[in-house]
């Protein structure tokens, strides 16, 4: 049953979306102000499933940029802590890509390891992901370098466009449930396996031609701290960095957050929000700052993704090659340039 393939013609997708949205929250890539971002679907939204990369990764469906953790109030002179309720509504993120789904695996490593982040875990449990294979990957894509197959996305249900049809293949129980709830729109297709394989072959052929696909990660990973950390290359690489947080905030794997208080008239709200290791106050404390220069902060971001994270996670890199930072850095800096600069000599110069 799990192996079945279900199809829908493109022009019926709108109907499928409104059926989905009637039952639960539906996140889709929507065009607004010239940029495509995942947002909650509403009637008439300009859905763009053809756009390979949203400006911001869909991670905030699971790890929102801002969320309240608890509220602390004083009742009759006593402090009272009201934890925020966990997510309890089911939702669907439709149209993620293979890299985005892989990004969630990275976040899982962080938030689902002990002690489990219950806020994230609840969303993970209630969210169903439909990923679409990348029919037209872009030049800044390099997921292949991280062993991710853009033609076979990891998700509750994978989907492929083939001509005027979208073919969906449930890959988990959740995906199966989703597909069965949409039986009115989806028809089981026999022999679609071959069609998908054909699409996959096309996609893989394109991915191979992408300029960064053959990026070599040799010399990165566990155990490279000493060699990379002291390299003189950082001095040259970090220079144009503006110390903004663009790369961190568009990234599907960056998970650093800040915890802050906001005083409302009904007590103090404790919230967390995304933070960036590129910011000067990231490590600032009353007693000083252990990363005072932008060089150190810049180095931290890349070392964390390419060395420290793999060291703690059996070699798994904390980059999925989505290339969003490549597209959006105001100074045209990016992880590809860093990886290439170190090249084979490991940056010893």
């Amino acid at each position: 049953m799990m192996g079945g393939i279900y199809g829908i013609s493109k022009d019926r997708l709108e109907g499928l979306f409104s059926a989905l949205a009637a039952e639960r929250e539906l996140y889709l890539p929507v065009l607004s102000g010239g940029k495509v971002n995942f947002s909650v679907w509403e009637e008439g939204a300009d859905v763009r499933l053809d756009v390979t990369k949203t400006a911001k990764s869909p991670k905030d469906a699971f790890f929102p940029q801002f969320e309240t953790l608890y509220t602390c109030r004083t009742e009759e002179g006593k402090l009272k802590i009201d934890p925020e309720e966990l997510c309890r509504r089911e939702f669907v993120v439709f149209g993620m890509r293979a890299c985005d789904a892989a990004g969630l695996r990275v976040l899982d490593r962080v938030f689902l390891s002990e002690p489990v982040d219950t806020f994230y875990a609840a969303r993970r449990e209630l969210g169903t992901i439909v990923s679409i294979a990348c029919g037209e990957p872009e030049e800044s894509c390099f997921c292949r370098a991280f062993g991710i197959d853009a033609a076979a996305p990891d998700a509750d249900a994978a989907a492929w466009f083939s001509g005027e049809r979208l073919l969906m293949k449930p890959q988990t129980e959740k995906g199966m449930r989703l597909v069965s709830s949409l039986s009115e729109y989806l028809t089981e297709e026999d022999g679609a396996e071959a069609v998908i394989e054909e699409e996959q072959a096309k996609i893989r052929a394109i991915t191979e031609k992408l300029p960064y696909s053959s990026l070599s990660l040799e010399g990165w990973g566990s155990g490279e701290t000493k060699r990379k950390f002291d390299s003189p290359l950082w001095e040259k690489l970090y220079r144009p960095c503006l110390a903004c947080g663009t790369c961190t905030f568009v990234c599907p794997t960056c998970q650093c957050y800040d915890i802050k208080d906001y005083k409302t008239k009904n007590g103090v709200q404790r919230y967390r929000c995304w933070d960036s290791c590129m910011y000067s106050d990231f490590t600032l404390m009353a007693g000083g700052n252990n990363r005072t220069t932008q060089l150190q902060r810049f180095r931290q971001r890349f070392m964390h993704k390419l060395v420290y994270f793999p060291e703690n996670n059996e070699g798994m890199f904390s980059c999925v090659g989505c290339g969003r930072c490549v597209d959006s850095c105001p100074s045209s800096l990016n992880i590809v340039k860093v990886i290439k600069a170190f090249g084979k000599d490991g940056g010893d110069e």
Partner: protein
Amino acid sequence: MQELKKRLCELLSDGTVARVLGWRRGETSFDPEPAFFGSAEELSDFVYDGFCGANLSKMMIEAARLEGKTAVCLKPCDTYSYNQLIKEHRVDREKTYIIGVGCRGKLDIDKIRASGIKGILSVSGTECDGDGDTLFVKTVYGDRTCKYADAMLSRCHVCRGKEHKIYDEIIGESRDTTDGDRFSEVEKLEAMAPRERFEFFRRELSRCIRCNACRNVCPACSCRKCVFDSNNFDSAQKANVDPFEEKMFHIIRAFHVAGRCTDCGECSRVCPENIPLHLFNRKFIKDINTFYGEYTAGEDAEEMCPLTDFDFGDAEPGDVTSGR
């Protein structure tokens, strides 16, 4: 570009300057990065073409603290920012050798992508000294072309002219790219009903991710410590709770640079979410011009900024808002 590179080499080798601030060739033909060059050999990676849109004047604040003179490549619009920084005592004119570089409009790779061109491998026809009006785009999906003017940054369409306001020498020719009115977008909004305007800005600003790129790139935002980085100011940064939070940030930021903003357009260029941030700045510029007389920040390094000045006969706040 060859002439420029040759001259930069000379300046470095005859000891006139200790370093050059320009652009380094990136991985592709459309991602050059701002860079310092310390020697003639390093200059082999130097590039100056249509994609060198970054305004380098803010980096001169850092250069002022370095030993020796720095040669910097400034486009006509960048010279306004540099003048403004001189006025604010943030850069050292004595330690700067300004090369005014020619400009025929700068390109925006996002504009090319938005025109439906995907998988771009390289773009040619971007030379500053070239005069072709077509860009040749090689993509994974075949070769395409695109008009130079269609790929230009929005700011170049309303350029204030190609005259360098401050320089030691000029290399390369500039070509006028203006084909629109600078304030037409602002006027269009002004003509809308307040509710429409509110909806417009809410829609635009709701995309803000608080990455601070606009602030960090802005040559007028040269404070050592930004008020939005202050720990004593609750909820001031990072959280995008509801539309107001961003409005607060962007209005205050625009206000802080009002009268000093040269309209270089960097904020809108770097915004990863394509928010038309220049609208705030242009509105202030337009208002200043209307209320207090024409003023161009960075036109020279002396004239007083309208917000640090006043006139006994200034209009009252109530009059100017309701009287439009």
